[in-house]
């Protein structure tokens, strides 16, 4: 087996896979390892024990403490894992799909179609991603799906460019000419012969982007334009910690648990995806195979 041996030889890649598996496990077991209160309409709504502002330190009842407004940090972290997967995978899959469609149409037909689609992509790219997403989320309104729509709207261009250059390269190869000579239709050429051979870079790009999308989404939540109040989401937990980072006089780190736990969760999640993406690039990209790696 190639992959296990590769993983054993690359401690960084192994770390990524282990971390990611742990997150998958937590997301799957979320209903088992947390208890849902009777008044929660949705399991994604964090339970709160009271209406005080001041966070409470870890206790037997709240193993990681409660944050501002008495939301349970442990519950928010566990269900926040599901939110993170939803955002990361959802945004990246939809973005990659749109990007691949637009990019392959542009590359395959070339000429005016190519020019038009790529200039549209340029306009979308000329605006900083986070700000564009923030503006669109503000207009669409708060909520997970609105935020995801905004992230997808401004997140497809990279894939489109990537697949376009990949297809332009493959289109000229002999086996494509051969297939064409055999009378294959445009669609058949694209779907059966060209796309399967040009998808790997997109896959690598997608896995690298999953982490960044979660970062961007949590940044939006942090800025107050992301998920609804009380939604189990790491970005929101950090936003709730913001008023308490100065601690109390004499003890500047009094409320450390409100910031550190969700901060570590986001960090490890993004790190896991980055490491896995790095490893995928090694495994899938034949041009880099054998190249010296650090």
């Amino acid at each position, binding site marked *: 087996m190639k992959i296990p041996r590769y993983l054993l030889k690359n401690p*960084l890649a192994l770390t990524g896979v282990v971390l990611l598996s742990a997150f998958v496990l937590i997301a799957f077991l979320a209903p088992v390892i947390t208890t849902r209160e009777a008044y929660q309409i949705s399991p994604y709504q964090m339970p709160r024990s009271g209406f005080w502002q001041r966070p409470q330190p870890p206790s037997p009842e709240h193993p990681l403490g409660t944050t501002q407004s008495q939301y349970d940090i442990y519950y928010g972290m566990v269900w926040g894992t599901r939110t993170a997967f939803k955002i990361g995978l959802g945004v990246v899959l939809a973005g990659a799909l749109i990007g691949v469609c637009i990019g392959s149409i542009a590359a395959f037909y070339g000429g005016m179609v190519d020019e038009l689609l790529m*200039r549209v992509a340029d*306009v*979308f790219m*000329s*605006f*900083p*991603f*986070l*700000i*564009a997403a*923030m*503006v*669109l*989320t*503000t*207009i*669409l309104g708060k909520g997970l799906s609105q935020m995801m729509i905004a992230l997808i709207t401004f997140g497809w261009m990279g894939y489109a460019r990537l697949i376009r250059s990949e297809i332009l390269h493959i289109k000229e190869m002999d086996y494509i000419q051969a297939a064409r000579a055999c009378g294959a239709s445009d669609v058949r050429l694209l779907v059966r012969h060209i796309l399967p051979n040009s998808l790997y870079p997109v896959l690598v790009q997608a896995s690298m982007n999953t*982490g960044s999308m979660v*970062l961007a989404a*949590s*940044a939006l939540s*942090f*800025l*107050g*334009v992301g998920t609804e109040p009380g939604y189990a989401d790491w970005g929101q937990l*950090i936003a709730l*910690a*913001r008023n308490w*980072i*100065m*601690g109390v006089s004499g003890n*500047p*780190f009094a409320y*450390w648990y409100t*910031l550190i736990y969700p*901060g570590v969760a*986001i*960090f490890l999640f*993004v*790190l896991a995806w*980055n*490491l896995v993406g*790095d490893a995928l690039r090694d495994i899938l990209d034949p041009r880099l195979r054998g190249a*010296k790696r*650090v």
Partner: protein
Amino acid sequence: MLSYIIRRLIFLPIVLISLSLMIFSMMMLLTPVQRLAVYAPDPSFMKGGADFVAQQIEKYGLDDPFYLQYGRWIGNIFRGNLGWAESYSMPVSQALVELFPATAELGLLAMIPIVLGAIWLGTKAAVHHNDVFDHSIRVFTILGWSFPTYVFALIVLMVFYGWLNIFPAGRLSHWATMEVASESFRAYTGMNILDAILNGNGAILLDAIRHLVLPVITLAYVWWAGMVRIMRSSMLETLRQDYVTTARAKGLREKVVQNRHARRNALLPVITIAGLIVAQLMGGLVITETIFDYHGLGQFASRAAQNLDFPAILGFALYFAVILVAVNLVVDLMYAFLDPRVKIG
């Protein structure tokens, strides 16, 4: 060279029109009542009751077809009316102009450690290819890439403000704000550091720097990761070139070969990326300015977004698009100027 500049300038309106179309399309997702606020010259405008609002929607033609509304919107902007920013209690255009120097100051200052640090670390990593130093830089950059800006910012704020109390949040201390606003202090540029130097005021200079340290470190840390990687791979590539081998064969000292022959040529990709970063840095500025309570465009945007202040957020988007186009133009021209191998025109 000249024909290139002229061609870029001809394309400028096309880029600006496409960007404004994009922003306007987003705006058209709002209801007519919400859009009316964008035309409001002052706050009393929106308080006229339902009849008045319906009348105004009629008057401003907010139910008209897309192209008519777009034309009117652009016309309004050319007259300098971007609407009323409720969250800042002033016209959007005024707020944008007043806040720009603060953001420019922070962004430009952050570029210095980003570029210099990246060049230094990247060169080191390439020269010590595959040894401990190189590996630790690799780990450092991966960590930097994965660490959320705002968590990093909150942690440094916790340590350096909450605990050690050396570097405060905000843009200036209270006394300094008063002094800058007073008659005796002349605001030449609106950038505190520059103004303090021009006024010969050391106390203000020190205060401004103290407030800028944390946001600059935050912005730099996050961007170092990407820049170091680029510098490293560029340097590695250059070190493999024949002329570097020739320089070594001539018996030049290794330091001279590395610094004079290799590094100079490895710098080009870093300069290109530095230009692109200026634009992307603005995204980071929104978060950084919000956390450090730094009164600039980034904080303006995040406050406007939180308060659903549509005129402010759209005005910001448009203003920002114009700045970006200008920055990109300057960077492109600089690049062509710096590298004689780039043939343009």
